[in-house]
C-alpha cells in the first residue's frame, strides 16, 4: 500500500513504537539490572538508568560460581555447554536430514515412500511425548551427563528432511543428468552440487535449529545431574529458585543477558542468507 495520509502514518507509527517499547522494555530492565550492585537492586523503586557495576558483574557472573550460595558451575561453563548442545543439534539435524532427503529424492529403493511416511509420522512424536522411553534408552546407552545424551535424541528431524526434500525437488533433473555425464558419482553430486545449491536453505534452517537447541530446557534438565553439564537456560531457573533466599538480581540479570547474546548473534550474522533461504524460489 502506497498511501499518503498523515494521520494514518502517525497512527501506524505510534502502534509500531508501542510494540517496540513493549518488547524492548524488559530487555532494557535486564540490562540496567545487570549494571547495578546487588544492594541497589533490592531497593525500591527499581532503577531505570544503567549503573556503574557492569564489568564487575560480568566478571562475577562468568567466573564466579554464578550465585555465591549455590555450588553451581561457573557461567562460562554453562555458556559453553549450551553452545556445544545448540551447535551439535543444529549441525546434526542438518546433516542427517540432508542425507535422508537425498536418499528419498534421488534413490529408488524398496518401500521408499514407506520410509518417507515413517519419517513424516515422527513429526507427531517430539521429545516431550516420548520423553520416558527416550530417557530409558539414553540411560541404558550410558549417555547420561554427556553431550551425546544431550543432543542425539533431539537430532532426527522430520521437518528438516521434508524441507530439504522440497528443495531438492525444485532442482531440475538436468542438473543430475549433467553431473552423471560429467562422471560425478552420487556422493560427489551430493557434495558438489546439491549442498551448494541448498546453501541458503541450510543457513535458514541453521538459525532456526540453533535457537531451538539453545532453548532446550526439559530434556537437559532430565538428562544432566552433573553440575558441569548444566546449560545456561536451566541455570536461570535454578537461580530464580535460589533468589528466594538471597536475591542477587544483578547476577541473575547478567546471566539472562548472556543467555540472549548467542542466538541474537546467530540471527544477525545469518540474516541475509536466512531471508534468502526462506523467500528465494528459483534455482
Amino acid at each position: 500500500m502506497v498511501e499518503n495520509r498523515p494521520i494514518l502514518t502517525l497512527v501506524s507509527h505510534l502502534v509500531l513504537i508501542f510494540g517496540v517499547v513493549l518488547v524492548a522494555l524488559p530487555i532494557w530492565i535486564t540490562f540496567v539490572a545487570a549494571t547495578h550492585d546487588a544492594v541497589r537492586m533490592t531497593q525500591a523503586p527499581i532503577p531505570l538508568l544503567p549503573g556503574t557495576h557492569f564489568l564487575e558483574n560480568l566478571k562475577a557472573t562468568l567466573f564466579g560460581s554464578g550465585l555465591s550460595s549455590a555450588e553451581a558451575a561457573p557461567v562460562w561453563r554453562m555458556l559453553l555447554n549450551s553452545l556445544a548442545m545448540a551447535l551439535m543439534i543444529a549441525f546434526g539435524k542438518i546433516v542427517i536430514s540432508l542425507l535422508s532427503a537425498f536418499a528419498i529424492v534421488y534413490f529408488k529403493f524398496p518401500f521408499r515412500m514407506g520410509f518417507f511416511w515413517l519419517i513424516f509420522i515422527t513429526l507427531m512424536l517430539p521429545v516431550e511425548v516420548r520423553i520416558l522411553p527416550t530417557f530409558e534408552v539414553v540411560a541404558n546407552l550410558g549417555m547420561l551427563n554427556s553431550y551425546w545424551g544431550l543432543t542425539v535424541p533431539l537430532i532426527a528431524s522430520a521437518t528438516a528432511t521434508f524441507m530439504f526434500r522440497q528443495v531438492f525437488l525444485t532442482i531440475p533433473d538436468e542438473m543430475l543428468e549433467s553431473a552423471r555425464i560429467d562422471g560425478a558419482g552420487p556422493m560427489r553430486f551430493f557434495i558438489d552440487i546439491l549442498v551448494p545449491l541448498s546453501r541458503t536453505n541450510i543457513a535458514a534452517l541453521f538459525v532456526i535449529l540453533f535457537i531451538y537447541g539453545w532453548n532446550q530446557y526439559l530434556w537437559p534438565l532430565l538428562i544432566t545431574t552433573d553440575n558441569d553439564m548444566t546449560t545456561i537456560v536451566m541455570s536461570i531457573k535454578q537461580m530464580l529458585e535460589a533468589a528466594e533466599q538471597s536475591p542477587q538480581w544483578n547476577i541473575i540479570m547478567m546471566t539472562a543477558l548472556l543467555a540472549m547474546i548467542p542466538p541474537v548473534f546467530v540471527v544477525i550474522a545469518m540474516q541475509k542468507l536466512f531471508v534468502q533461504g526462506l523467500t528465494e524460489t528459483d534455482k
Partner: protein
Amino acid sequence: MASITLKDLVKAYGDTEVLHHIDGQIEDGEFVVIVGPSGCGKSTLLRMVAGLETVTGGEIHIGDRVVNELEPADRDIAMVFQNYALYPHMSVRENMAYGLKIRKISKDEINRRVEEAADILEIRPYLERKPRQLSGGQRQRVAMGRAIVRDPQVFLFDEPLSNLDAKLRVQMRLEIRKLQQKLGVTSIYVTHDQVEAMTLGDRLMVLNGGYVEQFGTPIELYDRPETMFVAGFIGSPAMNFLPAEVANGVTTLSNGAQLGVAQGQGNVVLGVRPEHLEPQEDGAIEVQVQLMEQLGANTLLHGALKGTDTEMVVSLPGHVTAAPGTEMKFGAAPENMHFFAPDTQKRIE
C-alpha cells in the same frame, strides 16, 4: 571419433512402447539431425544414446563398443541440454572444468583446454562469471564449451537453441555447424524445427510416433519423400495433398481435371509443393484464390482446388497480385509430382 549404430532399438515405459525397432547407422564425423513433432520420441532416443534412459531392447554401438550397460560418463559423449543445465553456483570456468576435474586431469591441462574452448567460442571474458550473469546466448556457448573441453567421441544436442530468440537462433545454428565441421565430431542433434534440421544435418532421421519415417539427406527428403508424413513435414509451406484417381496412366483430380502424369492405380494422393506449381495457360490444376500473402521475395496464394474444398497453397516468386475469387491455372513438372497410397501413406513408384 566414432560411428554410432542403432540396432532394433526399442524403448517402453511400462506397457507403452514409445520407440519401435529403430535401426540406423551414423558415420564417423557425420552430423545427424533427429526431427519430428512433439512427443514422437526424439529426446528419448537421444537420451538412450547418452545413457540417461535404459534400453528396453536392441543395441547401441558407439565405435566398436556396445554401450547399452555403460554409465553416461563411460560412453565418451558430451551433451548439450535445452535449458543448458549449467551448475548455477559455479563460475563458467568451473562449469567447464568440472567433468575434467572428476577425471583427475591435471590442473594445467584443464586450464589449457578450458581456455582453448573459451577462445573458440569467444567466451573468454566471461570465464569468471556465474551463469546467471550471462545472457541466453552466452549460456548456450558455455554449455557447448562444457561439451567441447571433454573432447568426446560424440556430441549430443537436445533442442539446444529453442530458448533463444529467432535471430540468435539462426546465428548459433551456423556456429554449431561450423564448429562441428571444424572439430569433426560425430553429432546427433534433436529438434522439432524442420528448417533447423535441413540447414544443420548431413542427414535427417524423421521420427513420427516412435517410428523412423525416413533417414536421408535433406535433399533426398525434399525431392523424394518416402511417406506422406515426411512430404508434409519437410518444406515450408507444406506440400499440397490432392485426392485423385489413377486409371490407364491418367490422373483424375476430385474436380474432374485430368493430368497426363500418373503412378499406381485406383485411389491415390497427389502431392505437389507450393513452390513447384507454375502458372500455365493450359494448366490442369485450377485454384480459386481466397487469400494472398505478400512476403517480398515471394507471394503465397491460399485457396482451394476449383470446385472442391481441398485447400491449396501456391508460392510464386516475386510480387503477384490476385484478388480473392480469382481463378488461376497451374501445372507442375512430372518429377515434382509425388504419388502416395492413401491407405499406407507410402510413396508409389
